[in-house]
């Protein structure tokens, strides 16, 4: 069994190595050859078999021609974080054979297109090579270069169906749903699946000892990516203006929003109840969001780190002039262009304190697409309630990959929380209106929107103002407003999503704090550490500013590991800035090279720290994984 994972149910009567519903496989192809549909087909088929599954699309920043990989992890116990040890490699790209062979776990399999022989020197004694002449078969069976290439992908899906004992009826059904109206294409796809499947049955030992069996674990679940989920959240939140500029990995959020709006936001005459504007750059996109919110609409943008950098000046204005706005930052690997198609959590600090001067922003950190949907809606409520920019800080891994999550819930009684916006009636009854006067003592002053009532007119600007909204350069009057702004944003803690805590009944010695898409790997690591005698309580922050629970959690534990995906331990740094805990209570575990986190990496990080603290007395928790993490010296 792979070092990074736990052995699952042993099939009765089968040999001791046989496992069911615990497999990780990786498909190596070439970008732009249509492998995405075959990979999606496999994912969905496994999902429909009721087995927890995840897919990680590791694609290059390229449109066509470079190597691309797709990793699928199936796990009956629901552990679907990435794992770097693969039982089966589907090596369809001769250009990456050498690299792909290395990644197969000892005792695993390598499936390749034997139309191009696997060089002798690449064979490994501990890996079974399965050759299938896919290209040859496709060339013989189908016409046209494009068709042959596309159907070769479907054919390897057929081979996998045979090797893993997947239900062909499920695959047929899926193909019918996709190509139902295009009879010729559908038939060709059926044929390609059968071709691969039958060839494997005839020439290979099927199924592999590691195979699949239907379960009911995905009932009540959906398979969706976080950008689509967030886009739908924006629709349900009633967003009417989106200003944006294309940047991977956020573009698919806007694309999805457009798609939903075409369907759900056009009136009987075909006119749109939404304005989606592709801006000339992210500066303009941010300005559009602020302009739309200033007149009372729910406006948002979606971008990635470099875009937030460009938006920073405007974010300062919105913070100080107290204008709502929702900013989705789908984080990619920075700095600069970095690795734009790889995941990271490198913008935690930037979003929390974006812009010049003293600023501090409400942030939400979804851990999966279900939270992406939920937090998108909440972000608009928070932005309006606190009249401030709100960031949804989402990992690329969540935004762009498909996740199995519980169905989204919606309550038709929901109405947007518009916060304190004075109506014409209220303004009529008012003697005088002062934009920044905190009458209720909660740090939030009532705002007005243009066009409602003459008494509501106000000259919004970024210059120094006193508590009444009058221009000032007076030190005390300026500080008075700045203090209120801090209280206001800190006050949002009471309605932010509270941290998720998974822990021992009586509390463990060690704590572990994490964020976003690290959740799965951390919870899996927690189980593994527990089995190896080290109990750890886990807390996942879901919003910023942090509630008191976070500091209390750290204080409850002798040491708290902070697991995150960036070089500089940004989450740890924020914990130090925002709480009174001491540095020596926190131990950083980081992996930030662009890959989603794996449980093995977390376990290794813990093992390193335990060794540092306890030397040779440290319990042995480490698995023999290839995973590399970086500790930060205390």
């Amino acid at each position: 069994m792979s070092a990074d994972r736990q052995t699952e149910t042993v099939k009765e009567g089968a040999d001791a190595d046989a496992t069911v519903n615990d497999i990780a496989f990786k498909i190596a192809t070439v970008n732009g050859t249509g492998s995405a549909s075959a990979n999606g087909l496999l994912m969905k088929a496994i999902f429909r078999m009721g087995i927890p599954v995840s897919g990680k699309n590791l694609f290059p920043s390229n449109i066509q021609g470079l190597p691309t990989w797709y990793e699928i992890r199936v796990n009956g116990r629901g552990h679907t974080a990435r794992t770097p040890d693969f039982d089966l490699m589907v090596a369809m790209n001769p250009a990456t054979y050498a690299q792909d062979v290395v990644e197969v776990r000892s005792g695993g399999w390598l499936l390749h297109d034997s139309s191009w022989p696997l060089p002798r020197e690449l064979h490994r004694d501990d890996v079974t090579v399965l050759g299938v002449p896919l290209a040859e078969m496709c060339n013989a069976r189908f016409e046209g270069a494009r068709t042959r290439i596309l159907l070769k992908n479907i054919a390897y899906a057929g081979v996998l169906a045979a090797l893993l004992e997947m239900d062909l009826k499920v695959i047929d059904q899926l193909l019918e749903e996709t190509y139902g109206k295009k009879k010729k294409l559908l038939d060709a796809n059926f044929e390609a699946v059968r071709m691969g499947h039958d060839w494997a049955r005839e020439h290979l030992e099927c199924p592999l000892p590691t195979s699949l069996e239907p379960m009911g674990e995905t009932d009540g679940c959906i398979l969706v990516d976080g950008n689509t989920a967030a886009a739908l959240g924006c629709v349900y939140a009633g967003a009417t203006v989106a200003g944006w500029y294309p940047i991977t990995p956020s573009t698919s959020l806007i694309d999805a929003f457009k798609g939903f709006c075409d369907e759900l936001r056009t009136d009987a005459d075909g006119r749109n109840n939404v304005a989606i504007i592709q801006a000339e750059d992210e500066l303009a996109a941010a300005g559009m969001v602020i302009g739309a919110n200033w007149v009372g609409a729910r406006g948002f943008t979606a971008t990635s780190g470099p875009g937030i950098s460009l938006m920073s000046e405007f974010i300062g204005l919105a913070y100080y002039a107290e204008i709502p706005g929702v900013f989705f930052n789908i984080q990619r690997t920075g700095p600069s262009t970095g690795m734009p198609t790889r995941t990271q959590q490198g913008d935690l600090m930037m979003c929390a304190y974006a812009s010049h001067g003293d600023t501090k922003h409400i942030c939400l950190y979804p851990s999966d697409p279900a939270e992406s949907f939920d937090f998108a809606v909440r972000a608009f409520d928070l932005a309006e309630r606190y009249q401030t920019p709100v960031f949804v800080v989402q990992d690329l891994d969540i935004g762009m990959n498909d996740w199995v999550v519980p169905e989204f819930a919606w309550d038709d009684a929901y109405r947007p929380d518009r916060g304190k916006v004075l109506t014409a009636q209220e303004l009529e009854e008012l003697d005088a209106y002062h934009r920044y006067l905190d009458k209720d003592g909660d740090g939030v002053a009532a705002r007005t929107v243009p066009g409602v009532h003459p008494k509501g007119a106000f000259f919004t600007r970024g210059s120094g103002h006193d508590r009444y909204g009058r221009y000032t350069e007076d030190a005390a009057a300026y500080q008075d407003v700045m203090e209120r702004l801090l209280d206001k944003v800190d006050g949002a803690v009471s309605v932010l999503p509270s941290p998720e805590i998974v822990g021992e009944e009586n509390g463990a010695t060690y704590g572990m704090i994490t964020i976003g898409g690290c959740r799965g790997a951390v919870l899996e690591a927690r189980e593994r550490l527990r089995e190896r005698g080290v109990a750890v309580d886990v807390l996942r922050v879901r919003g910023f500013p942090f509630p008191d629970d976070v500091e209390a959690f750290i204080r409850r534990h002798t040491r708290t590991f902070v697991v995150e995906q960036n070089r500089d331990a940004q989450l740890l740094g924020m914990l130090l800035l925002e709480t009174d805990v001491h540095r020596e209570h926190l131990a950083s575990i980081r992996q930030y090279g662009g890959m989603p986190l794996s449980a093995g990496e977390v376990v290794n990080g813990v093992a390193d720290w335990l060794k540092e603290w306890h030397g040779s007395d440290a319990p042995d928790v480490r698995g023999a994984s290839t995973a590399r993490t970086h500790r930060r010296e205390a």
Partner: protein
Amino acid sequence: MSYITKPRVHHPALPTNSLGLTRRDYEGSMSTLCAGCGHDSITAAIIEAAWELELEPHMVAKLSGIGCSSKTPTYFLGKAHGFNSVHGRMPAIATGASAANRGLTYLGVSGDGDSLSIGIGQLCHAIRRNVNMLYVLENNGVYGLTKGQFSASADLGSTAKKGEVNRSEPIDPVLLALTLGCGFVARSFSGDKAQLIPLIKAGLAHDGFALIDVISPCVAFNDHQGSTKSYKYTRDHLEEAVAADFILPMAEITTSYEAGQGRTVEMHDGTRVRFRKVPEGYDPTDRDHAYAYLRDRAHVAEVPTGLLYIDTEDRAMHSVLGTVQTPLVDVGWDELCPGEDALAGIMERWR
């Protein structure tokens, strides 16, 4: 969201418009600009134009960037909502605001630094997107607020106060706007109210982006011999080529224009702009011709003013976006939120 102001009792000497508002109701707070600054004259023209147009002040959104010019929205329409944003970025704010609430009248004020250097991209794209707004560019050839550095509109060879000579070609906002397909391009001079007021009125009524480049001398840093944007230079070299009279659809002013002397262009909303003093053969609806004329005048160091180009075809942002007539801020919740049943349907795709 219209709100009709209740009639108020005013000093009988102050004339009122049909809303019962006097010119004073269109004023703002006291200007803090230098005495004699051209920008103040433009402010006065805006006040007059808004009063004459009988705009409800609170239905106007006045926006600006940063600079002395961008400060001026404080000094007019004190009862309108205003937004003094960040340097060079007012067009984006206006775009988002206009997208969300098409029911307001948008009036942007900017400077040559704000519009032609840091904000030139946003200006270009607001023109290209055809945001429904009047954009007044108060052009003094310098950065006033930061104390007299050359701006991108400073003329070749003009000298700064300290004697430094500008060696870079200027960017002419009028030529720029024409090139970008702007549907309303005008130029005027801050000291020429008779010309400026009707242009502002026409620009506000234009459905789409209207640019008025107003030469507006900076008395502190750019009103000396050698500056082509000084009062003296401008007065001597102005060429009023095409002046416009603005006519409201319901209250048509019937002052006589002799046939053959003028030309009337009907605008999208039914209002009309009438040109006069049109030079021989000048066609304000012919972009190429406007271009050639401007080039031609430039050779003899003349600055043509007036309404230089107009196109009344309906290509404004909302018609391109295909948005509903109702301002998006007023669209009902039922139209915006698809609800629980629709969600169940959508999720079926993800199984």
